[in-house]
Protein backbone atom coordinates (compact mmCIF):
# COMPACT_ATOMS: atom_id res chain seq x y z
CA UNK A 1 0.00 0.00 0.00
CA UNK A 2 2.00 2.93 -1.18
CA UNK A 3 -0.76 5.43 -1.73
CA UNK A 4 -0.54 9.15 -1.08
CA UNK A 5 -1.48 10.23 2.41
CA UNK A 6 -5.11 11.08 3.11
CA UNK A 7 -4.11 13.02 6.22
CA UNK A 8 -0.90 14.90 6.58
CA UNK A 9 0.29 16.98 9.52
CA UNK A 10 3.31 19.15 8.92
CA UNK A 11 5.15 20.61 11.85
CA UNK A 12 2.08 21.58 13.86
CA UNK A 13 2.29 24.07 16.71
CA UNK A 14 -0.75 24.58 18.92
CA UNK A 15 -1.43 26.23 22.23
CA UNK A 16 -4.21 26.83 24.72
CA UNK A 17 -4.01 30.55 25.28
CA UNK A 18 -0.52 31.07 26.55
CA UNK A 19 0.16 27.41 27.19
CA UNK A 20 2.18 26.06 24.31
CA UNK A 21 1.34 22.37 23.92
CA UNK A 22 2.30 21.16 20.46
CA UNK A 23 5.80 21.94 19.28
CA UNK A 24 6.07 20.37 15.89
CA UNK A 25 3.91 17.35 15.30
CA UNK A 26 4.39 15.45 12.06
CA UNK A 27 2.12 12.64 11.08
CA UNK A 28 0.69 10.94 8.02
CA UNK A 29 -2.15 8.55 7.48
CA UNK A 30 -2.62 6.77 4.18
CA UNK A 31 -5.79 5.42 2.73
CA UNK A 32 -6.94 2.24 4.43
CA UNK A 33 -4.17 2.44 6.98
CA UNK A 34 -4.44 2.18 10.72
CA UNK A 35 -2.05 4.60 12.35
CA UNK A 36 -1.59 4.84 16.08
CA UNK A 37 -0.44 7.77 18.12
CA UNK A 38 1.11 7.11 21.49
CA UNK A 39 2.62 8.98 24.35
CA UNK A 40 2.38 9.39 28.07
CA UNK A 41 -0.34 11.44 29.76
CA UNK A 42 -0.29 15.07 28.91
CA UNK A 43 2.06 14.82 25.96
CA UNK A 44 -0.34 16.36 23.48
CA UNK A 45 -2.11 13.45 21.81
CA UNK A 46 -5.59 14.83 22.30
CA UNK A 47 -4.40 18.28 21.42
CA UNK A 48 -3.21 16.88 18.11
CA UNK A 49 -6.63 15.41 17.53
CA UNK A 50 -8.29 18.72 18.35
CA UNK A 51 -6.00 20.45 15.94
CA UNK A 52 -6.93 18.05 13.15
CA UNK A 53 -10.65 18.39 13.78
CA UNK A 54 -10.61 22.16 13.89
CA UNK A 55 -11.61 22.37 17.53
CA UNK A 56 -8.32 24.07 18.19
CA UNK A 57 -6.59 26.24 15.64
CA UNK A 58 -2.84 25.59 15.34
CA UNK A 59 -0.82 28.74 14.90
CA UNK A 60 1.86 27.18 12.79
CA UNK A 61 2.20 24.29 10.39
CA UNK A 62 0.00 22.70 7.82
CA UNK A 63 -2.68 20.04 7.83
CA UNK A 64 -4.00 18.50 4.66
CA UNK A 65 -6.84 16.14 4.30
CA UNK A 66 -7.33 14.55 0.89
CA UNK A 67 -5.00 17.26 -0.38
CA UNK A 68 -7.28 19.99 0.97
CA UNK A 69 -5.64 22.39 3.38
CA UNK A 70 -7.94 22.16 6.39
CA UNK A 71 -6.01 24.13 8.91
CA UNK A 72 -8.16 26.97 10.19
CA UNK A 73 -11.31 25.55 8.70
CA UNK A 74 -14.40 25.38 10.86
CA UNK A 75 -14.76 22.01 12.46
CA UNK A 76 -18.09 21.14 10.87
CA UNK A 77 -16.59 21.63 7.44
CA UNK A 78 -13.71 19.35 8.27
CA UNK A 79 -16.14 16.74 9.54
CA UNK A 80 -18.14 17.03 6.35
CA UNK A 81 -15.01 16.30 4.36
CA UNK A 82 -15.09 12.91 6.01
CA UNK A 83 -13.38 13.08 9.37
CA UNK A 84 -15.19 11.11 12.09
CA UNK A 85 -14.26 11.58 15.71
CA UNK A 86 -14.57 9.46 18.84
CA UNK A 87 -13.39 12.02 21.34
CA UNK A 88 -11.59 11.52 24.56
CA UNK A 89 -13.97 11.29 27.49
CA UNK A 90 -16.84 10.21 25.24
CA UNK A 91 -18.67 13.51 25.09
CA UNK A 92 -21.98 11.91 24.31
CA UNK A 93 -24.95 14.23 24.34
CA UNK A 94 -26.25 13.47 27.80
CA UNK A 95 -29.53 15.28 27.22
CA UNK A 96 -30.44 13.08 24.27
CA UNK A 97 -31.59 9.51 24.12
CA UNK A 98 -29.39 6.77 22.79
CA UNK A 99 -31.15 6.78 19.47
CA UNK A 100 -30.99 10.54 19.12
CA UNK A 101 -27.26 10.43 19.80
CA UNK A 102 -26.83 7.95 17.00
CA UNK A 103 -29.03 9.48 14.34
CA UNK A 104 -28.55 13.16 15.15
CA UNK A 105 -25.47 13.63 13.03
CA UNK A 106 -25.65 10.52 10.87
CA UNK A 107 -24.91 10.54 7.18
CA UNK A 108 -26.17 7.87 4.83
CA UNK A 109 -23.69 5.16 4.04
CA UNK A 110 -22.59 1.73 5.07
CA UNK A 111 -23.13 2.26 8.77
CA UNK A 112 -26.74 2.73 9.77
CA UNK A 113 -28.77 2.17 12.88
CA UNK A 114 -29.30 -1.51 12.20
CA UNK A 115 -25.61 -2.20 11.74
CA UNK A 116 -24.80 -0.37 14.96
CA UNK A 117 -27.40 -2.39 16.80
CA UNK A 118 -25.90 -5.61 15.48
CA UNK A 119 -22.48 -4.44 16.55
CA UNK A 120 -23.68 -3.35 20.02
CA UNK A 121 -26.81 -5.38 20.70
CA UNK A 122 -26.97 -3.91 24.19
CA UNK A 123 -28.48 -0.73 22.70
CA UNK A 124 -31.50 -2.55 21.31
CA UNK A 125 -33.45 -2.27 24.52
CA UNK A 126 -31.96 1.10 25.40
CA UNK A 127 -32.73 3.14 22.30
CA UNK A 128 -35.07 5.50 24.07
CA UNK A 129 -33.09 5.64 27.28
CA UNK A 130 -31.48 8.93 28.21
CA UNK A 131 -27.84 8.45 27.31
CA UNK A 132 -26.59 9.94 30.55
CA UNK A 133 -27.97 6.87 32.29
CA UNK A 134 -25.76 4.49 30.37
CA UNK A 135 -22.86 2.79 32.05
CA UNK A 136 -19.41 4.12 31.30
CA UNK A 137 -18.61 1.40 28.80
CA UNK A 138 -21.95 1.75 27.10
CA UNK A 139 -21.32 5.45 26.68
CA UNK A 140 -18.02 4.63 25.06
CA UNK A 141 -19.77 2.29 22.63
CA UNK A 142 -22.27 5.00 21.90
CA UNK A 143 -19.52 7.44 21.04
CA UNK A 144 -18.02 4.89 18.68
CA UNK A 145 -21.38 4.14 17.13
CA UNK A 146 -22.08 7.83 16.70
CA UNK A 147 -18.84 8.37 14.84
CA UNK A 148 -19.37 5.33 12.63
CA UNK A 149 -22.82 6.60 11.70
CA UNK A 150 -21.26 9.66 10.10
CA UNK A 151 -19.63 7.18 7.70
CA UNK A 152 -16.27 8.92 7.66
CA UNK A 153 -13.36 8.25 5.39
CA UNK A 154 -10.97 8.94 8.26
CA UNK A 155 -11.93 7.74 11.70
CA UNK A 156 -10.13 9.20 14.69
CA UNK A 157 -10.42 7.36 17.98
CA UNK A 158 -9.06 9.05 21.08
CA UNK A 159 -8.73 6.36 23.73
CA UNK A 160 -11.68 4.55 22.31
CA UNK A 161 -11.20 1.35 24.26
CA UNK A 162 -11.10 3.09 27.61
CA UNK A 163 -13.56 1.46 29.95
CA UNK A 164 -14.52 -1.30 27.58
CA UNK A 165 -14.51 -4.87 28.76
CA UNK A 166 -12.03 -7.22 27.09
CA UNK A 167 -14.75 -8.86 25.01
CA UNK A 168 -15.98 -5.58 23.65
CA UNK A 169 -12.47 -4.27 23.08
CA UNK A 170 -11.77 -7.29 20.94
CA UNK A 171 -14.91 -6.61 19.03
CA UNK A 172 -13.80 -3.04 18.41
CA UNK A 173 -10.38 -4.15 17.21
CA UNK A 174 -12.07 -6.50 14.80
CA UNK A 175 -14.35 -3.80 13.51
CA UNK A 176 -11.40 -1.50 12.97
CA UNK A 177 -9.60 -4.14 10.97
CA UNK A 178 -12.68 -4.71 8.87
CA UNK A 179 -13.30 -1.05 8.33
CA UNK A 180 -9.74 -0.39 7.26
CA UNK A 181 -9.91 -3.27 4.84
CA UNK A 182 -12.77 -1.43 3.19
CA UNK A 183 -10.48 1.50 2.60
CA UNK A 184 -11.29 3.70 5.54
CA UNK A 185 -8.30 5.20 7.27
CA UNK A 186 -7.97 5.19 11.01
CA UNK A 187 -6.00 7.25 13.47
CA UNK A 188 -6.06 5.71 16.89
CA UNK A 189 -4.77 6.87 20.23
CA UNK A 190 -4.44 4.21 22.86
CA UNK A 191 -2.23 2.63 25.43
CA UNK A 192 0.35 0.35 24.01
CA UNK A 193 -0.91 -3.21 23.99
CA UNK A 194 -0.57 -6.40 22.01
CA UNK A 195 -3.75 -5.66 20.05
CA UNK A 196 -2.53 -2.23 19.14
CA UNK A 197 0.74 -3.64 17.94
CA UNK A 198 -1.10 -6.19 15.84
CA UNK A 199 -3.53 -3.84 14.31
CA UNK A 200 -1.55 -0.72 13.52
CA UNK A 201 0.33 -0.35 10.27
CA UNK A 202 2.36 2.53 11.52
CA UNK A 203 2.84 4.47 14.76
CA UNK A 204 3.96 7.79 16.10
CA UNK A 205 5.01 8.70 19.59
CA UNK A 206 4.65 12.18 21.04
CA UNK A 207 6.86 13.57 23.74
CA UNK A 208 6.10 17.06 25.05
CA UNK A 209 4.17 17.97 21.95
CA UNK A 210 6.77 16.75 19.46
CA UNK A 211 6.83 13.68 17.27
CA UNK A 212 9.85 11.86 18.59
CA UNK A 213 9.50 8.41 17.20
CA UNK A 214 7.73 6.76 14.31
CA UNK A 215 7.73 3.36 12.75
CA UNK A 216 6.23 -0.09 13.01
CA UNK A 217 5.26 -0.54 16.62
CA UNK A 218 6.34 -4.15 16.70
CA UNK A 219 9.82 -2.97 15.88
CA UNK A 220 10.22 -0.48 18.69
CA UNK A 221 13.33 -0.99 20.75
CA UNK A 222 12.83 -1.55 24.44
CA UNK A 223 14.99 1.50 25.13
CA UNK A 224 12.72 3.73 23.11
CA UNK A 225 9.71 2.16 24.68
CA UNK A 226 11.10 2.78 28.13
CA UNK A 227 12.10 6.30 27.24
CA UNK A 228 8.91 7.45 25.57
CA UNK A 229 6.23 5.26 27.03
CA UNK A 230 7.61 4.42 30.41
CA UNK A 231 7.52 0.65 29.89
Amino acid at each position, binding site marked *: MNKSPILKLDNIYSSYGNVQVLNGVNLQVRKGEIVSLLGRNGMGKSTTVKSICGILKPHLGNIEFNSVRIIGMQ*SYKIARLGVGLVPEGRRIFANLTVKENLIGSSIKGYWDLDKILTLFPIFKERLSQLSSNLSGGEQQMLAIGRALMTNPSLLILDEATEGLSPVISQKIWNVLRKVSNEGISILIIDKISQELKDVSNYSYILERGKSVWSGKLSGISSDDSKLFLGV
Partner: protein
Amino acid sequence: MTAELLIEQFLNGLQFGFMLFLMSAGLTLIFGVMGLINLAHGSLYMIGAFSAAATFAFFNSFWLSLLASFSCAAIVGIVVEKTIIRKLYNRDHLDQVLVTFALILFFSELVRWIFGAFPLYLDVPELLNGSIEVFSGIYYSKYRLFIIFVGLIIAVFLFFLIGKTNLGIQIRAGQHDREMISALGVDISKLYTLLFGIGAALAGLAGALIGTIQSVEVGMGEPILILAFVIIVIGGIGSIKGAFIASLLVGLVDTLGRFLIPWVLQTVTNPSDAMSVGSAIGSMLIYILMAIILILKPTGLYGKQLS
Protein backbone atom coordinates in the same frame (compact mmCIF):
# COMPACT_ATOMS: atom_id res chain seq x y z
CA MET B 1 -73.88 30.74 39.13
CA THR B 2 -75.16 28.96 36.11
CA ALA B 3 -73.71 25.95 34.36
CA GLU B 4 -73.35 27.98 31.18
CA LEU B 5 -71.20 30.51 32.94
CA LEU B 6 -69.03 27.77 34.36
CA ILE B 7 -68.64 26.18 30.95
CA GLU B 8 -67.87 29.49 29.38
CA GLN B 9 -65.26 30.22 31.99
CA PHE B 10 -63.77 26.82 31.40
CA LEU B 11 -63.57 27.64 27.71
CA ASN B 12 -62.05 30.96 28.59
CA GLY B 13 -59.45 29.16 30.61
CA LEU B 14 -58.58 26.89 27.71
CA GLN B 15 -58.52 29.81 25.36
CA PHE B 16 -56.26 31.77 27.69
CA GLY B 17 -54.08 28.69 27.77
CA PHE B 18 -53.76 28.74 24.00
CA MET B 19 -52.94 32.39 24.17
CA LEU B 20 -50.23 31.65 26.69
CA PHE B 21 -48.91 28.93 24.46
CA LEU B 22 -48.79 31.36 21.60
CA MET B 23 -46.88 33.85 23.74
CA SER B 24 -44.38 31.29 24.89
CA ALA B 25 -43.99 29.29 21.68
CA GLY B 26 -41.08 31.35 20.42
CA LEU B 27 -39.37 31.25 23.75
CA THR B 28 -39.80 27.48 23.93
CA LEU B 29 -37.50 27.26 20.95
CA ILE B 30 -34.99 29.85 22.00
CA PHE B 31 -34.87 29.08 25.68
CA GLY B 32 -36.25 25.57 25.94
CA VAL B 33 -34.54 23.99 22.99
CA MET B 34 -31.51 26.20 22.35
CA GLY B 35 -30.95 26.86 26.01
CA LEU B 36 -30.49 30.60 25.66
CA ILE B 37 -32.02 32.74 28.38
CA ASN B 38 -33.59 35.33 26.17
CA LEU B 39 -35.12 38.10 28.21
CA ALA B 40 -35.64 40.03 24.98
CA HIS B 41 -38.44 37.68 24.00
CA GLY B 42 -40.93 40.30 25.10
CA SER B 43 -39.20 42.85 22.92
CA LEU B 44 -39.59 40.63 19.87
CA TYR B 45 -43.23 40.26 20.80
CA MET B 46 -43.52 44.03 20.98
CA ILE B 47 -41.65 44.49 17.71
CA GLY B 48 -44.09 42.12 16.05
CA ALA B 49 -47.05 44.06 17.38
CA PHE B 50 -45.64 47.43 16.40
CA SER B 51 -44.70 46.35 12.91
CA ALA B 52 -48.20 44.99 12.54
CA ALA B 53 -49.75 48.21 13.82
CA ALA B 54 -47.61 50.31 11.52
CA THR B 55 -48.52 48.14 8.56
CA PHE B 56 -52.13 48.28 9.57
CA ALA B 57 -52.11 52.03 9.73
CA PHE B 58 -50.66 52.10 6.24
CA PHE B 59 -52.51 49.38 4.37
CA ASN B 60 -55.42 48.80 6.68
CA SER B 61 -55.13 45.06 6.19
CA PHE B 62 -55.05 42.66 9.09
CA TRP B 63 -53.52 39.83 7.11
CA LEU B 64 -50.78 42.00 5.73
CA SER B 65 -49.97 43.18 9.22
CA LEU B 66 -49.72 39.59 10.43
CA LEU B 67 -47.25 38.96 7.68
CA ALA B 68 -45.32 42.05 8.69
CA SER B 69 -45.33 41.04 12.33
CA PHE B 70 -43.47 37.82 11.96
CA SER B 71 -41.23 38.83 9.12
CA CYS B 72 -40.04 41.95 10.92
CA ALA B 73 -39.53 40.08 14.16
CA ALA B 74 -37.66 37.36 12.30
CA ILE B 75 -35.40 39.86 10.60
CA VAL B 76 -34.66 41.67 13.83
CA GLY B 77 -34.11 38.32 15.50
CA ILE B 78 -31.66 37.15 12.88
CA VAL B 79 -29.75 40.40 12.89
CA VAL B 80 -29.49 40.36 16.66
CA GLU B 81 -28.45 36.72 16.64
CA LYS B 82 -25.76 37.27 14.06
CA THR B 83 -24.32 40.36 15.65
CA ILE B 84 -24.70 39.73 19.35
CA ILE B 85 -26.35 36.58 20.55
CA ARG B 86 -24.04 34.14 18.86
CA LYS B 87 -21.16 35.37 20.93
CA LEU B 88 -23.04 34.25 24.01
CA TYR B 89 -23.70 30.57 23.49
CA ASN B 90 -20.46 29.57 25.07
CA ARG B 91 -20.90 32.01 27.88
CA ASP B 92 -22.41 31.76 31.25
CA HIS B 93 -26.19 31.92 31.53
CA LEU B 94 -25.71 35.19 33.34
CA ASP B 95 -24.03 36.91 30.45
CA GLN B 96 -27.04 35.99 28.38
CA VAL B 97 -29.30 37.46 31.03
CA LEU B 98 -27.39 40.70 31.06
CA VAL B 99 -27.18 41.15 27.31
CA THR B 100 -30.78 40.29 26.63
CA PHE B 101 -31.81 42.57 29.48
CA ALA B 102 -29.88 45.32 27.77
CA LEU B 103 -31.68 44.48 24.55
CA ILE B 104 -34.99 45.12 26.31
CA LEU B 105 -33.85 48.58 27.31
CA PHE B 106 -32.59 49.21 23.83
CA PHE B 107 -35.64 48.04 21.94
CA SER B 108 -38.22 49.56 24.26
CA GLU B 109 -36.63 52.93 24.05
CA LEU B 110 -36.03 52.65 20.33
CA VAL B 111 -39.64 51.76 19.66
CA ARG B 112 -40.76 54.63 21.84
CA TRP B 113 -38.46 56.93 19.94
CA ILE B 114 -39.92 55.84 16.62
CA PHE B 115 -43.58 55.43 17.51
CA GLY B 116 -44.03 57.77 20.44
CA ALA B 117 -45.21 56.99 23.93
CA PHE B 118 -48.88 56.39 23.23
CA PRO B 119 -50.41 53.01 22.40
CA LEU B 120 -51.15 52.07 18.80
CA TYR B 121 -54.08 50.49 17.12
CA LEU B 122 -54.64 47.08 15.57
CA ASP B 123 -58.09 45.77 14.81
CA VAL B 124 -59.77 42.46 14.26
CA PRO B 125 -60.63 41.86 10.60
CA GLU B 126 -64.25 41.77 9.48
CA LEU B 127 -64.04 38.06 8.84
CA LEU B 128 -63.26 37.29 12.48
CA ASN B 129 -65.45 39.90 14.08
CA GLY B 130 -68.27 38.88 16.36
CA SER B 131 -69.17 35.58 17.93
CA ILE B 132 -70.49 32.23 16.81
CA GLU B 133 -72.47 29.68 18.69
CA VAL B 134 -70.19 26.81 19.70
CA PHE B 135 -72.69 24.81 21.74
CA SER B 136 -76.30 25.47 22.14
CA GLY B 137 -76.54 28.70 24.04
CA ILE B 138 -72.81 29.27 24.32
CA TYR B 139 -71.37 31.96 22.11
CA TYR B 140 -67.73 32.43 21.57
CA SER B 141 -65.69 35.15 19.94
CA LYS B 142 -64.56 34.16 16.47
CA TYR B 143 -61.26 35.89 16.93
CA ARG B 144 -60.51 33.94 20.05
CA LEU B 145 -61.36 30.73 18.26
CA PHE B 146 -58.95 31.86 15.58
CA ILE B 147 -56.26 32.27 18.23
CA ILE B 148 -56.93 28.74 19.43
CA PHE B 149 -56.61 27.55 15.87
CA VAL B 150 -53.30 29.29 15.31
CA GLY B 151 -52.07 27.99 18.65
CA LEU B 152 -52.87 24.45 17.57
CA ILE B 153 -51.11 24.84 14.26
CA ILE B 154 -48.02 26.18 15.95
CA ALA B 155 -48.08 23.39 18.49
CA VAL B 156 -48.15 20.80 15.74
CA PHE B 157 -45.49 22.62 13.78
CA LEU B 158 -43.14 22.82 16.75
CA PHE B 159 -43.79 19.30 17.78
CA PHE B 160 -42.90 18.11 14.34
CA LEU B 161 -39.92 20.41 13.93
CA ILE B 162 -38.31 19.59 17.22
CA GLY B 163 -39.51 16.10 17.86
CA LYS B 164 -39.52 14.59 14.41
CA THR B 165 -36.70 16.16 12.47
CA ASN B 166 -32.99 15.83 13.02
CA LEU B 167 -32.87 19.56 13.39
CA GLY B 168 -34.34 19.32 16.86
CA ILE B 169 -31.88 16.65 17.88
CA GLN B 170 -28.94 18.63 16.56
CA ILE B 171 -29.97 21.80 18.32
CA ARG B 172 -30.40 20.05 21.61
CA ALA B 173 -27.09 18.33 21.12
CA GLY B 174 -25.59 21.73 20.47
CA GLN B 175 -27.05 22.97 23.71
CA HIS B 176 -25.14 20.24 25.53
CA ASP B 177 -21.87 20.39 23.64
CA ARG B 178 -21.49 22.75 20.72
CA GLU B 179 -17.93 21.82 20.00
CA MET B 180 -18.76 18.14 19.71
CA ILE B 181 -21.76 18.51 17.45
CA SER B 182 -19.68 20.69 15.14
CA ALA B 183 -16.97 18.08 15.11
CA LEU B 184 -19.61 15.66 13.89
CA GLY B 185 -20.28 17.80 10.87
CA VAL B 186 -23.22 19.93 11.89
CA ASP B 187 -23.14 23.66 11.12
CA ILE B 188 -24.52 24.55 14.47
CA SER B 189 -24.16 28.31 14.09
CA LYS B 190 -26.39 28.33 11.08
CA LEU B 191 -28.95 26.14 12.81
CA TYR B 192 -28.96 28.41 15.81
CA THR B 193 -29.48 31.46 13.66
CA LEU B 194 -32.32 29.72 11.90
CA LEU B 195 -33.96 28.61 15.09
CA PHE B 196 -33.53 31.99 16.70
CA GLY B 197 -35.18 33.50 13.66
CA ILE B 198 -38.11 31.11 13.89
CA GLY B 199 -38.44 31.78 17.60
CA ALA B 200 -38.40 35.51 16.99
CA ALA B 201 -40.97 35.16 14.22
CA LEU B 202 -43.28 33.24 16.52
CA ALA B 203 -42.87 35.89 19.20
CA GLY B 204 -43.66 38.60 16.69
CA LEU B 205 -46.69 36.78 15.39
CA ALA B 206 -47.99 36.33 18.91
CA GLY B 207 -47.45 40.02 19.56
CA ALA B 208 -49.63 40.95 16.62
CA LEU B 209 -52.32 38.37 17.29
CA ILE B 210 -52.64 39.17 20.95
CA GLY B 211 -51.92 42.85 20.59
CA THR B 212 -54.97 43.01 18.39
CA ILE B 213 -57.29 42.34 21.27
CA GLN B 214 -55.20 43.73 24.07
CA SER B 215 -53.06 46.74 23.47
CA VAL B 216 -50.07 47.66 21.40
CA GLU B 217 -47.79 49.73 23.57
CA VAL B 218 -44.23 49.98 24.68
CA GLY B 219 -43.65 47.64 27.60
CA MET B 220 -46.36 45.22 26.46
CA GLY B 221 -43.74 42.50 26.31
CA GLU B 222 -42.66 42.55 29.91
CA PRO B 223 -45.59 40.80 31.57
CA ILE B 224 -45.54 38.32 28.70
CA LEU B 225 -41.90 37.61 29.26
CA ILE B 226 -42.33 36.44 32.82
CA LEU B 227 -45.43 34.46 31.92
CA ALA B 228 -43.65 32.74 29.08
CA PHE B 229 -40.79 31.72 31.31
CA VAL B 230 -43.23 30.47 33.90
CA ILE B 231 -44.95 28.31 31.30
CA ILE B 232 -41.76 26.78 29.97
CA VAL B 233 -40.40 26.06 33.38
CA ILE B 234 -43.62 24.50 34.59
CA GLY B 235 -43.72 22.35 31.48
CA GLY B 236 -40.12 21.33 31.79
CA ILE B 237 -37.37 22.97 29.79
CA GLY B 238 -36.99 21.67 26.27
CA SER B 239 -40.32 19.92 26.10
CA ILE B 240 -42.79 21.27 23.57
CA LYS B 241 -45.43 19.00 24.96
CA GLY B 242 -44.66 20.28 28.45
CA ALA B 243 -45.00 23.89 27.36
CA PHE B 244 -48.29 23.11 25.71
CA ILE B 245 -49.76 21.35 28.71
CA ALA B 246 -48.39 23.94 31.10
CA SER B 247 -50.04 26.69 29.06
CA LEU B 248 -53.40 25.06 29.30
CA LEU B 249 -52.89 24.31 32.97
CA VAL B 250 -51.90 27.84 33.82
CA GLY B 251 -54.70 29.21 31.66
CA LEU B 252 -57.26 27.13 33.44
CA VAL B 253 -55.93 27.63 36.94
CA ASP B 254 -55.60 31.36 36.49
CA THR B 255 -58.98 31.85 34.88
CA LEU B 256 -60.99 29.57 37.09
CA GLY B 257 -59.07 30.71 40.15
CA ARG B 258 -59.77 34.36 39.53
CA PHE B 259 -63.37 33.51 39.01
CA LEU B 260 -64.01 30.87 41.65
CA ILE B 261 -61.87 31.94 44.60
CA PRO B 262 -63.81 35.14 45.34
CA TRP B 263 -66.99 33.21 44.79
CA VAL B 264 -66.00 30.54 47.30
CA LEU B 265 -64.77 33.13 49.78
CA GLN B 266 -68.10 34.90 49.61
CA THR B 267 -69.61 32.02 51.46
CA VAL B 268 -67.39 32.73 54.46
CA THR B 269 -66.94 36.50 54.55
CA ASN B 270 -68.68 39.58 53.22
CA PRO B 271 -68.60 40.09 49.44
CA SER B 272 -66.28 43.05 49.29
CA ASP B 273 -63.61 41.45 51.50
CA ALA B 274 -64.04 38.22 49.60
CA MET B 275 -63.52 40.09 46.40
CA SER B 276 -60.32 41.81 47.44
CA VAL B 277 -58.79 38.86 49.28
CA GLY B 278 -59.89 36.63 46.43
CA SER B 279 -58.29 38.73 43.79
CA ALA B 280 -55.14 39.07 45.85
CA ILE B 281 -54.84 35.30 45.92
CA GLY B 282 -55.91 35.22 42.29
CA SER B 283 -53.00 37.34 41.21
CA MET B 284 -50.55 35.18 43.14
CA LEU B 285 -52.04 31.98 41.79
CA ILE B 286 -49.74 31.39 38.83
CA TYR B 287 -46.71 31.75 41.02
CA ILE B 288 -48.14 29.54 43.70
CA LEU B 289 -48.82 26.94 41.05
CA MET B 290 -45.29 27.18 39.72
CA ALA B 291 -43.74 26.93 43.17
CA ILE B 292 -45.81 23.88 44.04
CA ILE B 293 -45.01 22.12 40.80
CA LEU B 294 -41.31 22.78 41.11
CA ILE B 295 -41.25 21.68 44.72
CA LEU B 296 -42.90 18.42 43.76
CA LYS B 297 -41.14 18.00 40.43
CA PRO B 298 -37.91 19.99 40.43
CA THR B 299 -37.55 19.77 36.65
CA GLY B 300 -41.07 20.69 35.72
CA LEU B 301 -43.82 18.46 34.41
CA TYR B 302 -41.95 16.95 31.48
CA GLY B 303 -38.41 18.04 32.11
CA LYS B 304 -35.69 15.45 32.09
CA GLN B 305 -33.52 14.99 35.10
CA LEU B 306 -29.99 14.55 33.87
CA SER B 307 -27.88 12.34 36.05
